[in-house]
C-alpha cells in the first residue's frame, strides 16, 4: 500500500515536471514564432528607400521617413521632460519621505497613475492639451501625454535605484559632515547611476512603441516636412514641436484600421520590423550599458 502511493507520487512528479517543461517550451516557441514572423515578413520590405521616403496615403510604395523621425523626436522630448521630474520625485520618495500616512497616499496616487490605461491618459491629453489649451494635435501634446505614461514607472525605477545604494554610504557621507543634499548629489546619485541609466533606456523602449496615448494627442497624420528648414517656428520645419506628428507605432495602427493604402500590410510588416529592431537594440543596449557602468563605477571591488 505504502509503496504504491510512493510510485504514484513519483509518476505524478515526473509528469508534472514534464508538463511544466512543455509549457515553458510553448512560451519560448511563441516568442520565436513572433519574432521570426515579424522579421521574416518585415525585413524584405525594409530598404534605404523605405526608411528615407515619406509615406503615401493613397498610393503604394510609401516609406516611413517622417514617422521614424517623429518617433525619435517625441522620444527625445519626452525623456527631456520626464527625466528631471522623475529624478526629483524619486529622490524625494527614497531620501526624504518619512514612512507616514501622507507618504503612503503619495505612493498610492503614483501607483494609480501607473496602472491607468494609456488610452485614458491619451484622452486626458486630448481634453486638456488639444482642446482646452489649443495646442492642437502636436508633438508637444504627444510628448506631454507620453510623459504622463512614463513618469510613474520612471519615478519608481529611480526610487528603487537610489534605494539599492547601501545605507552605509549615506552614513559615511553624514559622518564626514556632508549635508543631506550633498550626500545625495555627490554620493548616492553617482552610486545609483547604473540603475538610473538602465531604467531610462528601458523607458525609452516603452516610449518608442507607445501608440494609444498618442493617437489623440500627436495626431494621426504626418504632413510633409522639410529637413533643411532649421527654424523651429516654421510649420514645415522638422524641428517644429507644434506640428501634428504620426509616429511609427501610430502609423502601423492607422494603416491597419483605415485601410486605404493598397500596400498597408507590406508597409506595416516593414515598419513593425523596424520598430522591433530598434527596441531590440534598446533592450540589448540597456543590458550592456548597465553592466558596463556597473563595472566602471566600481560596483566590483578592485
Amino acid at each position: 500500500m505504502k509503496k504504491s502511493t510512493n510510485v504514484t507520487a513519483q509518476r505524478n512528479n515526473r509528469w508534472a515536471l514534464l508538463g511544466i517543461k512543455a509549457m515553458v517550451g510553448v512560451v519560448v516557441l511563441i516568442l520565436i514564432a513572433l519574432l521570426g514572423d515579424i522579421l521574416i515578413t518585415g525585413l524584405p520590405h525594409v530598404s534605404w528607400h523605405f526608411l528615407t521616403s515619406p509615406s503615401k496615403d493613397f498610393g503604394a510604395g510609401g516609406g516611413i521617413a517622417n514617422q521614424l523621425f517623429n518617433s525619435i523626436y517625441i522620444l527625445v522630448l519626452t525623456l527631456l521632460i520626464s527625466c528631471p521630474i522623475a529624478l526629483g520625485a524619486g529622490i524625494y520618495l527614497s531620501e526624504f519621505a518619512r514612512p507616514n500616512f501622507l507618504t503612503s497616499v503619495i505612493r498610492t496616487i503614483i501607483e494609480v497613475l501607473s496602472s491607468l490605461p494609456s488610452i485614458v491618459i491619451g484622452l486626458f491629453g486630448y481634453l486638456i492639451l488639444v482642446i482646452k489649451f489649443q495646442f492642437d494635435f502636436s508633438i508637444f501634446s504627444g510628448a506631454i501625454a507620453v510623459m504622463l505614461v512614463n513618469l510613474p514607472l520612471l519615478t519608481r525605477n529611480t526610487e528603487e535605484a537610489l534605494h539599492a545604494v547601501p545605507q552605509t554610504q549615506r552614513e559615511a557621507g553624514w559622518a564626514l559632515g556632508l549635508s543631506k543634499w550633498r550626500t545625495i548629489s555627490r554620493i548616492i546619485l553617482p552610486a545609483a547611476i547604473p540603475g538610473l541609466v538602465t531604467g531610462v533606456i528601458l523607458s525609452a523602449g516603452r516610449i518608442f512603441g507607445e501608440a494609444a496615448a498618442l493617437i489623440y494627442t500627436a495626431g494621426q497624420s504626418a504632413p510633409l516636412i522639410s529637413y533643411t528648414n532649421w527654424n523651429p517656428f516654421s510649420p514645415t520645419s522638422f524641428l517644429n514641436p507644434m506640428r501634428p506628428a504620426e509616429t511609427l507605432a501610430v502609423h502601423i495602427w492607422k494603416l491597419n484600421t483605415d485601410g486605404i493604402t493598397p500596400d498597408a500590410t507590406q508597409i506595416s510588416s516593414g515598419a513593425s520590423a523596424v520598430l522591433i529592431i530598434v527596441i531590440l537594440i534598446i533592450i540589448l543596449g540597456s543590458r550592456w550599458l548597465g553592466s558596463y557602468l556597473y563595472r566602471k563605477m566600481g560596483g566590483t571591488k578592485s
Partner: protein
Amino acid sequence: MNDVQRKLMQPSAATKQDRRGKIISLICIVFILILTVSLIGFIAVRGLATFFTNHVSLREFFFSSAWNPGQLGKNGQPQVGAAAMITASFAVTLLSAILATPFAVAVALYMTELAPKRGARLLQPVIELLVGIPSVVYGFIGLIVVVPAIRTLFGGTGFGVLAGSLVLFVMILPTITSLTIDSLKQVPDYYRSASLALGATRWQTIYKVILRAALPGILTAVVFGMARAFGEALAVQMVIGNAALMPTSLVTPTATLTSQLTSQMGDTIMGTLPNNALWSLALVLLLMSVIFNVLIKWIGKRGEMQK
C-alpha cells in the same frame, strides 16, 4: 561682533542647499500628484455629464446593450447602453488571464525551482522581449495571423473575443510571469528543505508547499495582468471587430471599452451626447483600474497576515 553673531545664527550655505534640494524634489512629486488628481477630476466631470447633463439613467448605461448615442430609441430616449462593451472587456480580460496564468506559473516555476541558473539565463531575455514588443505589433500580428487562423478554424469573420483574448494572452504573460517569479523567490528556502526532508517529491513540494505559500503573490500577479488586459486599447481594437454588439459567441465581432473609445472618439463633437457617452466609457475604465489597484492592495494585506 554683531556681524559674527548674525553669520553664526544664519543658516549655513549647506543648510540652504539642503532646503532647496528638498523643495525641488518635493515640487517634482507634487507636480505628479496634481497631474494625476486633475486627470481623474477632468475625466470624472466629462464622464458624469452623460448622467447629469443628458439625464441618461445609470441602469440603462450599465444594463442595456443598445449603443447608439447619436439616435433615439423606441422610447424616445438616446440609446446609451454600455453593457456590450463592458461584457466584452471583462470577457477578453478573464479569458486571457485564464489562458496566461498556467503558462506564467510554469515559466516562473521553471526559472525559480527547476532550473534556476540555466532557466533564468534563458528565459529572462524571453520575458524582456515579450514586454518590449509594442502593442501595435501584437495587434498587427493578431490581424494577419490570429484572425485568419480563427476564421479558417471556426468560421465567421475571425474577429471577436477569442482573437482579442489570444493577443492579450501573449501580452500579459510576461507581466504575470515576472511578478510570480518575485513571489516564488520570497518563499523561504527552509520551506523547500523541510518538505524535501519529509520525503516529498519535487512536484509535491511545489504543489503543496511553494505554490500555497506564494498564492497571495501569484494572485496579485494575475490581477496586475488583468488590469493590463482591461486597459489595453490598440492591440484589442485591431482584432475585436469593432461592432458595439453584445458578444453572442467567442467569434462574433464586438467592441471593448477601450476599442470603442479608440475608434469613436475622433468622430464625435465635444459636448454632445455621443461624445459624453464615450467619456463615460473612459470613466468606467478609470474606475476599473482603481478597483484593480484596491484589489491588489487587499490581496497584499491578506497575504501578509497569513505569514
